[in-house]
């Protein structure tokens, strides 16, 4: 009997592997992707990167311009995250208030904004706002708002539910419950999500900037298109450094508030 169960399980695993292989070959047929060719080109790509994609002394003269743009991008990410976060919190609180109409409406709106990627937002907004920082900001704001609403709703339902019930039973109003129970019990997770979102938005805003012609993304694009790979590599290195700094800072903040 037990042997049969084990055999059955082995069959499952076999079926799973066969399915993965079939999926892989199916995808290869459709896209024309060849793994062997991709693997062969890796050394070549590494060689090209090492010989071209590194900052030189002459590219250093672009550093001040890069830092100015980077500064713009980082602050755009922070502004988009904080404003998006505030709106997300309001929507999350409305959607957990227990009024079915609010819940459905808030979730639909948030899911609409969440399921359209920020780059698509950027392209769409480009048409209405033109190539400027506003389109970039709104694109990041929408994506942040959609994602954080979902994250906050889940946090409130997971962490706050029991104390919400207790205060309701004591006759508290929803406003009192928000400030006395929901915010104190969810604050660490909320801050954690905001920090995570700032990191994500710095990465995204680079990409969005390429599309909207603003910030560090645009600068990278320009250097790249003018074959100034040395300066382009300097941009990449600076972005990595900034993200590492932000990550270290947010880890520190997380440890402090926990």
């Amino acid at each position, binding site marked *: 009997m037990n042997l049969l169960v084990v055999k059955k399980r082995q069959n499952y695993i076999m079926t799973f592997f066969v399915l993965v292989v079939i999926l892989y070959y199916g995808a290869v047929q459709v896209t024309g992707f060849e793994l062997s060719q991709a693997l062969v080109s890796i050394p070549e790509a590494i060689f090209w990167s090492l010989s071209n994609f590194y900052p030189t002394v002459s590219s250093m003269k672009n550093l001040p311009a890069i830092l100015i743009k980077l500064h713009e991008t980082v602050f755009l990410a922070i502004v988009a995250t904080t404003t998006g976060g505030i709106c997300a919190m309001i929507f999350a609180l409305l959607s957990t208030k227990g009024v079915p109409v609010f819940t459905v409406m808030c979730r639909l709106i948030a899911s609409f904004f969440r399921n359209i990627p920020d780059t698509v937002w950027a392209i769409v907004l480009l048409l209405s706002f033109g190539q400027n920082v506003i389109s970039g900001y709104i694109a990041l704001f929408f994506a942040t708002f959609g994602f954080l609403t979902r994250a906050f709703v889940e946090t409130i339902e997971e962490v706050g539910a*029991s*104390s919400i*019930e*207790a*205060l*309701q*039973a*004591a*006759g*508290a*109003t929803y*406003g*009192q419950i*928000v*400030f*006395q*129970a929901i915010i*104190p*019990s969810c*604050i*660490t997770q909320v801050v954690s999500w905001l920090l995570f979102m700032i990191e994500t938005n710095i990465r995204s805003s680079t990409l969005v900037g390429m599309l909207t012609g603003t910030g560090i993304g645009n600068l990278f694009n320009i250097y790249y298109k003018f074959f100034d790979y040395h300066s382009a590599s300097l941009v990449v290195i600076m972005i990595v450094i900034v993200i590492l700094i932000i990550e270290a800072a947010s880890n520190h903040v997380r440890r402090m508030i926990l």
Partner: protein
Amino acid sequence: MAFLECKSVTKEYATTTALKNICFSVKNGEMVAIIGPSGAGKSTLLRCINRMIKPTTGEVIFDGINFNRLNSAELRQQRRKIGMVFQHYNLVNRLSVVENVLHGRLGYKSTLEGILGKYNESEKEDAFKILARLGMEEQAYKRCDELSGGQKQRVGIARALIQEPKLMLCDEPIASLDPSAAKVIMDYLLDINKSMGITCLVNLHQVDVAMKYSDRIIGVRKGEVIYDGPPSELKKETIHKIYDSKTGELIMD
């Protein structure tokens, strides 16, 4: 007129009926234990009394007021008179003990006062008095996540008591506690009932605890009241009927 009266309270969910035509009344100052297997509807019954769950049909009349006819502001006012104690304590763990106790006063505050956490001196004094009564004065400034289960439940009781309630609804207050902490909590509840005269409805899993502490036992099975009377008259056969068990299947046999 009865102090608390449930008139044919029924609660139906989409697929199940949690409570069927529940009728009972409670006198002021009674200590009532509600026993029954998990899923029998004990928690739903307690929550129907303070309308945390709205009954499908039937009426709850408490202290001369029909809870069905209240709007949300009136309901909040009435809920101040009913303290609730939970199995999982339902405290805000990141706040201090005394802050959690003062949450019990929110029903008496305006929304703004409550949001800002403005409590007056006499409320704060009361909070400390109640904590002292429950042997928790030394923990007053500790954060709730530093406390043991028994201590957390005492904070839960303190939060209910500061409401100056006439009725306490205790939803399995000792189900998550070890036997000695459970005894401490039950002794406090009995003391609150006897010396302060606050009526208590306590959901319990342990029949022996119900027999020892209550004046009256209500046995619930599958949403129906099977037994309603003093512990002394609760026979073994009735207990087996409540738990749908045969002789020898329960620990007490």
